[in-house]
């Protein structure tokens, strides 16, 4: 009978072997896919077990996890809505967005840089505390930009040209992240639905994402840069000065804004055309350059490229294959050119920084709970789209735009301000998109800005970039210069 007993034993060993294999399959081979299954709430509970790190602006937390007497033990507390577009939200039920999402691995203490902390935590049984993320934003400039925008819809970006550090980033309308950070499903879900279904898309940071905007005349900076860099054109290159211009191959007539010619005389220089922001010379220039050379310059300046600041930036767009008439329209930023406010701020910053475009950056430093510095991004050159000489010419023309041209409302007494306005058309009767981009002081730039105001600033087709966007940019630049 002992033979049978041994065989029964063998059968049991085989059965247990099957269990060992199954357990290994679940806990090793399939562990990751099971853990990340959307129905597995452990991952979201897990993030609440550790005290999530704060996000700081000027050394002061603008969001932090405070102790809270429920199963999650902490609640996320957002200090001010003015940072909402940048910080985003971290919700149990609606996912996460903004830096809360982009910096999640650091904030939650799960980044690979915190490996040794995690090992320590495993040994002493205490959970890892999330790292603190210090932003490049300046609270005063952010506040100035927020206040200057008032109730208008749109976005403001301010960059330090030498370093790419983002000093202010505002998008309006925005949301209250505290409403999404609650621990009860119903109110959070209701708040999320209201925001999500709002036509103004308050959950989207329009400074870097969303549907982007037609740039209108601010795109003339890119076209001028392409012209100067081509070697075929100088600021003194002359174009025919017409009152109306029929686009090549069509019967469509275009006009300069205001409907007159670009100053007096039979011809007009590129310089005057830019200072007065005339459309007809730029349509001609665009056709002489051709879409390929404009697109090449746009791409050098960051169009079409993925960018992480570390928020994900929607790439700006220059049309793929425009015909001659369409190319002429792109010369003054119409047709299908679409840009983000950040992209235009980068263009101004590159001009301000003598042709060198720096990588925009929102994160100043990431510091672990044990005060180890986990990340300390150095300023990084993104590209050199234009020569120092071209940058100088563009600066002079932009200063003239503010001092004698159509961007006068951006002027700050005692400083040379460089700027360019834009008033983009979105359709025959749709309100304009109003733009300003520029920098100050022109001789030693401290800040480059881009301002976009949607819906014509509330006055349809009556507003201009100079009238509505330029004063906002002025307020932001003044806040920097006053510091």
């Amino acid at each position, binding site marked *: *009978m*002992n*033979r*049978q*007993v*041994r*065989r*029964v*034993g063998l*059968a*049991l*060993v085989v*059965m*247990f072997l*099957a*269990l*060992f294999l*199954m*357990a*290994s399959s*679940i*806990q*090793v081979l*399939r*562990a*990751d896919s*099971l*853990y990340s*299954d959307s*129905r*597995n*709430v*452990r991952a979201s*509970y897990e993030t609440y077990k550790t005290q999530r790190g704060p996000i700081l602006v000027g050394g002061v937390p603008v969001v932090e996890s405070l102790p809270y007497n429920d*199963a999650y033990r902490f609640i996320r507390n957002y200090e001010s809505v003015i940072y909402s577009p940048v910080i985003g939200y971290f919700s149990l039920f609606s996912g996460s967005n903004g830096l809360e999402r982009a910096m999640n691995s650091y904030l939650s203490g799960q980044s690979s840089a915190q490996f040794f902390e995690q090992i320590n935590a*495993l040994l002493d*049984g205490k959970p890892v505390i999330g790292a603190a993320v210090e932003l490049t934003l300046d609270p005063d400039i952010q506040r100035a930009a927020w206040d200057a925008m008032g109730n208008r819809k749109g976005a403001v970006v301010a960059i330090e040209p030498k370093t790419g550090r983002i000093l202010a980033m505002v998008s309006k309308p925005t949301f209250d992240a505290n409403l999404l950070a609650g621990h009860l499903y119903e109110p959070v879900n209701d708040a999320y639905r209201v925001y999500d279904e709002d036509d103004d898309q308050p959950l989207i940071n329009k400074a870097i994402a969303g549907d982007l905007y037609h740039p209108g005349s601010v795109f003339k900076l890119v076209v001028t840069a392409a012209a100067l860099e081509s070697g075929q054109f100088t600021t003194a290159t002359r174009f025919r000065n017409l009152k109306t211009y029929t686009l090549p191959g069509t019967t469509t007539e275009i006009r300069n804004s205001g409907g007159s010619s670009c100053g007096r005389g039979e011809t007009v220089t590129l310089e005057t055309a830019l200072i007065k922001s005339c459309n007809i010379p730029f349509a001609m220039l665009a056709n002489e350059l051709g879409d390929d050379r404009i697109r090449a310059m746009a791409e050098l300046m960051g169009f079409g490229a993925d960018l992480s600041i570390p928020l994900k930036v929607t790439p700006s767009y220059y049309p793929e294959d425009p015909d001659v008439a369409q190319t002429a329209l792109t010369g003054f930023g119409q047709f299908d050119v679409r840009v983000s406010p950040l992209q235009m701020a980068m263009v101004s910053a590159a001009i301000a920084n003598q042709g060198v475009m720096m990588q925009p950056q929102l994160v100043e430093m990431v510091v672990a709970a044990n005060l180890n510095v986990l990340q300390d991004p150095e300023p990084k050159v993104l590209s050199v789209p234009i020569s120092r000489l071209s940058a100088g010419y563009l600066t002079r023309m932009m200063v003239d735009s503010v001092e004698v041209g159509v961007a006068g409302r951006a002027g700050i007494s005692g400083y040379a301000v460089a700027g360019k306005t834009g008033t983009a058309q979105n359709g025959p009767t749709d309100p304009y998109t109003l733009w300003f981009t520029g920098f100050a002081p022109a001789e030693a730039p401290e800040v480059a800005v881009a301002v976009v105001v949607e819906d014509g600033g509330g006055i349809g087709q009556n507003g201009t970039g100079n009238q509505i966007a330029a004063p906002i940019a002025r307020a932001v630049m003044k806040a920097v210069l006053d510091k």
Partner: protein
Amino acid sequence: MSNTSLTSAIPKLLKAVPRSRNFEAVLLFWVSGILAFALAQVQLAVLQKMQWSLLFYWALPTLGALLIHFVLRKRAVSADGLILPLAFLLNSLGIAMIYRLDLAEAARGGTALFADRQVWLSLIAMAIAALVIWLVPNHLVLRRFPYLAGIGALVLLILPALPVIGRTRNGATLWIGIGDFTFQPGEIAKILLAIFFAGYLVSRKDSLSEIGSRVLWMRVPRAKDLGPVLVVWFATVGVLVLQRDLGTSILYFGLFLVMIYTATGRAFYVGVGVTMMLTGALVASRLFDYVSRRFDSWLDPLSQDNYNAAGGSYQLAQALFGMANGDVIGAGLGGGFPQLIPLAESDFILAALGEELGLAGIFAVLAAFLLLIYRGLRIANSHSDDFSKLLTTGLAFVLGLQVFVVAGGVMGLLPLTGLTTPFLAAGGSSLLANWALVALLLVISDSSTRRAA
């Protein structure tokens, strides 16, 4: 030939385990320490401080184990030295996990607490095991009452299907209840069945194994001798229908097949029996909704349909999520979310252990079971009389099969059943039956060495 020397060295090493009670005492001390550390870790991780209640959860089970230990010193001094520490270890891990789940339940304001009860029931079960060892110094007395045991088993099996006292949980009618007190008689029935089969087969094994005609390579027994197989098969299928639980019928039928095989050495019975069982299960899965739902959930636990279905795979999927969270080394006691798995304190306690102790913990628990079973089979091997061999093989196998069916169900290897995890799960009948089973193994091991000596 280093290969053979290695493989032969392991059994030799295991044979070398002393049967001295002092060795057992050292192991019990060690396991008691594991229980104390586990409880302390649970309290520190969940409550962030230690509480005096730890002593209660530690002292009572330790007291029970010591009670058995001292009874063994008096009445069965040369019993196997590993069985008691292994059973105590498994019982302790169960208590620690149930206590941990209680703390999570209390934290969310729940009142479904099990740990206090489990600790008292463990003590009672161990006291009864001590009593069994005290009262049954020689297990051969059991051989005198095979039919009494058989009838007793049958009555216990039918009880839950009776009106008034029968209780149904999660679709399976495995409980009887009087007021708040519930009991799962099938757990005790498995021991009685093993006694019955052992007694019956010892007297019939010759006719079952030798008479009959040869067909192909197998010797087919006479219809008359095949009769009992059919009777037991019908009885287990009856259990399946009445109690709506596949696991219980697999357990009893499997026990019967293994014991008849051990008695006769005829693979024919196993072949025919497994075929009949599979056929029965397949037919049942077609005929009965509750069986077919279990099959669907088993085949694809993560499909949204099964996940959402009432009585579907939600529980199994949660168990898989939990085990995945445990990874290799586990989230640590108090560090995971085993409270998210429904019935984590009973049917799914293995998944809860898998989440917090990881693959390493699952391996350790399964290895403890395997070692316990191995000790049982070793006793069977060393015994000279057939009744003892059969009974011990039956007891060891039924324990192993139950672990296999439960663990297989929790991990999605087999369809889910209503069986409990021996020693680990919350529940008195399971503790009582398995401690009684251990008591029998200890008594039999004692007599085997006495005879050899």
